[in-house]
């Protein structure tokens, strides 16, 4: 995994590979991160999740948890696990260019 660049674009990453400056995020970077997370290519369904995270983050400055994804985002748990297997919110948050989720639930 790259330290300070994704597909040759210089970005700031934390030790877990999450972008620390969201202004550096672009859809191209999202696609590259999706590749690293094993969920590429991103489909409309993936983008629906990424967009909800972005909207919710702007409002609450935190990555939404599973229940908020279900209730507010209208994205069922099963879909999240299907779209982003083995760590749905961690992976989606990373691809969306937001910090690693800091909640237990």
């Amino acid at each position, binding site marked *: 995994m790259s330290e300070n660049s994704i597909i040759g674009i210089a970005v700031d990453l934390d030790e877990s590979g999450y972008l620390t400056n969201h202004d550096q995020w672009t859809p191209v970077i999202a696609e590259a991160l999706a590749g690293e997370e094993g969920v590429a290519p991103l489909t409309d369904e993936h983008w629906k999740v990424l967009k909800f995270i972005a909207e919710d983050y702007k409002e609450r400055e935190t990555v939404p948890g599973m*229940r908020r994804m279900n209730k507010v985002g209208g994205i069922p748990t099963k879909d999240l*696990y299907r779209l982003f297997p083995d760590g749905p919110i961690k992976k989606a948050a990373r691809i969306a260019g937001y910090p690693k989720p800091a909640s237990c639930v």
Partner: protein
Amino acid sequence: MNAEPIKKVSIVVSKGSLEGVYPGLIMANGARMEGIEASLFFTFFGLHAVVKKKMDKLRVATVGNPAMCVPDAMGFALPTIVGAIPGMSAFATSMMKKEMEKLDIPPVGEFIEMISDAGCKMYACKATVDMFKLSSDDFCPQMDKVLTVGEFYELSAGSQIIFT
């Protein structure tokens, strides 16, 4: 720090109080969120977490709980005799549920559904099912199977077993 990551956990829930059930559910959900294979095994009063009529009526134990404090966790110790007053357990339960709601921790029934949808298997202990005289109609649809303890160990091959 380069130890082998945990790949699979089997979590035993043996207590039927609200504070007895949640830790196991949070750990199972957290495991799935990390991509760890997980299963839940409900035994003794812990079984109430997957019994339709009981799952959303679990309560905080205010008797026999020396850590119980009022008005919150950092408040004064609640004397056991006060904890025994009718309504105290219901009161403590509603307080805790309110705090959990703020953290977006779902009620037990909804949490069980979320964890099951996350791919965690749910099992009931056969000895307890027999002792409590329960039938499949008593269980929520997410409960996958009744298992003997031997079957539980077989299914837990390669697992870390966590008893709560």
